[in-house]
């Protein structure tokens, strides 16, 4: 391009892709980055290479936010998930463009964004229903009123699928958060852009700070942290070799963390959306009370 032409043209403003902790968008405290390149080797963006410290900070934020989020009414949680879908719909072109930029076809990108919006609507609708499906009043033989309900496990660490930019992370965050959990999520390493943009969508959707925290970074560096942290109640991980799965469970056992393996799932398929994914991050609590005078 000739120098004269360049002088006339408006320079596009590139986005700085940051991480999302406690409702804020910091850069990684470590100051490190990795580059995301397109197929031709052109640098698309410098991505935060989050550190273990970023992860620990995220867990603190998630823990702090958890009780209030769990105590929010199911109706409210449902509406907030619906709001996320609304925001995503409004910004769908950006997400399609980011997916294309990261190597997806236009057609696939379109389909993935639409499926992600629909998935959020799907789980929004479950907010005030899964409890009714999975709870029980138990007919004990003694003179007691006895019932079992679901309660959120607490803080969930999620290693989102690496081979999907948006639908994978959405499909794992939604069932955890709709059930009153808070989470710390490691975005796809291959396609991290949408995860960061999705954090911006969350931020504009009345999701309280700390409920969802999203980090970008290297799996090889962070998986063990996600599995071993003593204040995380469950880990959901979506890919990795058998060896990685073994390491995750081994480290998770330090605090008897629940291990949810979601490997080899076709996240674009409706089959992978069901209330059993909500139940995966729920505990069953049983309460007894005497019946008498």
């Amino acid at each position, binding site marked *: 391009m000739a120098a004269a032409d360049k002088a006339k043209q408006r320079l596009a403003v590139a986005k700085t892709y940051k991480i999302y902790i406690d409702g804020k968008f910091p850069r990684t405290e470590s100051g490190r980055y990795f580059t995301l390149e397109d197929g031709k080797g052109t640098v698309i963006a410098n991505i935060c290479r989050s550190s273990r410290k970023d992860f620990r900070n995220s867990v603190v934020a998630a823990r702090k936010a958890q009780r209030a989020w769990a105590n929010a009414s199911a109706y409210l949680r449902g509406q907030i998930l619906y709001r996320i879908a609304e925001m995503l719909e409004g910004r769908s072109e950006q997400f399609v463009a980011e997916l294309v930029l990261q190597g997806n076809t236009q057609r696939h990108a379109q389909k993935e964004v639409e499926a992600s919006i629909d998935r959020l609507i799907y789980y929004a609708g479950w907010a005030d229903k899964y409890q009714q499906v999975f709870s029980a009043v*138990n007919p004990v033989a003694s003179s007691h009123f006895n019932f*079992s309900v679901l309660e959120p496990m*607490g803080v969930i660490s999620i290693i989102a699928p690496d081979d999907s930019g948006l639908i994978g992370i959405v499909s794992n965050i939604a069932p955890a958060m709709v059930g009153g959990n808070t989470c710390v999520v490691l975005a796809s390493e291959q396609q991290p852009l949408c995860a960061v943009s999705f954090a911006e969508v969350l931020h504009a959707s009345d999701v309280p700070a700390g409920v969802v925290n999203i980090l970008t970074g290297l799996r090889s560096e962070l998986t063990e942290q996600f599995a071993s942290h003593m204040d995380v109640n469950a880990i959901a991980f979506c890919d990795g070799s058998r060896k990685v799965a*073994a390491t995750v469970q081994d480290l998770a056992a330090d605090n008897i963390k629940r291990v949810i393996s979601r490997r080899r799932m076709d996240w674009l398929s409706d089959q992978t959306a069901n209330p059993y994914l909500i139940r995966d991050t729920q505990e069953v*609590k049983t*309460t*007894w*009370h005497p019946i008498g005078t």
Partner: protein
Amino acid sequence: MATPENKLAFDGGWEYDPAPEGVEHIRAKKRYGLYIGGKFVAAEKGRTFDTINPATEEKLARVAQASELDVDKAVKAARKAYTGPWGRMKASERGKYIFRIARIMQERAREFAAIESLDGGKPIRESRDVDVPLAAAHFFYYAGWADKLEYAFPGRKAKSLGVAGQVIPWNFPLLMAAWKLAPALACGNTAVLKPAETTPLTALKLAEVIADADLPPGVVNIITGAGDTGAAIVNHPGVDKVAFTGSTGVGRIIQKALAGTNKKYTLELGGKAANIIFADAAIDQAVEGIVNGIFFNQGHVCCAGSRLFVQEAVAEEVIQKLKDRMETLIVGDPLDKNTDIGAINSSMQLEKIQSYLEIGQQEGGTMHQSSCSVPETGYWCRPTIFTGVSQSNRVVQEEIFGPVLAIQTFRTFDEALSKANNTPYGLSGGVWTDKGAKIFKMTQSVRAGVVWANTFNKFDPSSPFGGYKESGVGREGGLHGLDAYVKLGV
């Protein structure tokens, strides 16, 4: 026993006469083999160990000690039954077999109760009224599920897993066997079960019941041994599912051992339950709840109410009433129907409890024990409470698994809640108040799988049981207990 200062004198100044349960009716053998493939067989290496009566230290029987070879045999027998008759049988027929087990156990309940008390040291009143009837009820409950699983998992199809490897503790030997076997069988699995080494007898008697019920050989295999036998079951590649009840320490080892396998697992682990007494509680009932919470089964209960939190305004009254009530508790012969607290299960467990009594005092706690007499032989521990302890004390943080209660006070709801939840455990909890709204707020806020409000230590086959946090993974009992023994497909 009654002293002038003692406000409670249940004996009215008279001594209780001994009221021992007869044991002449029980049919116990002096030697037991391993129950594999429908037959009692000797261990491959011929090794045995003795099981003793913890109340007398006398030997009850010699049982086979299973090695890896025996575990392998048992798993193969279970696999053969799974791919064979049990797997092919109509679900409704499987259910009928399980119903049959329940009925035979009811018929032989008295015998089971006596053996449970002999082998484990628990008071006959408890084995007779709690352990054995609940075990039979558990089989009866799950029997009915066998042909109804399609209604338990909406939108999903439940399939059996295969061979379940099950390792159970010594505190409720028969009941834990029932908790493990009944849902496993109802869901179409076969099982290899190992009772604890100090309490193998009722599980071996259960093997006789299973034989009498004519279950196909290999559907249930019961093998005896210690920790290495349990490890061999957990690690056997032919096992599809591991169910364990025991300490958090061993549970952690099992979860690690299963890493990288596709074995499903449920873990019922330790606890340090908070029992919270508000000033507006019915105090006398609450005191009964405290006693039941910590002294039931000598405190050998994973969900025992071993941490007591009393609101300051009533602390003095509650503690005094508790001490008075403790004086009435009879510690002694497990077979005596008047006995409240039986024998500590083993010398090892007694040593552990005694070490905590020393630790508690070294840490500055004030120890109080009832003044009752205990027999000269056998393993005994008087009911014990600690006051003047704080959150960081080991007797407050660690599971003692004995009749030892740590008492703290609180002023506000929030203080009680934060203290109650300040533990890595989350198995159970108790709340005592006459105010309904407070009950619901507290029961919702305590991070535990089972919460008793104005009651404690109640169990039922239809009621799910299991912990949050480091108290375990999964539930046993009720509709939710089915999950542990199925995989869900579409």
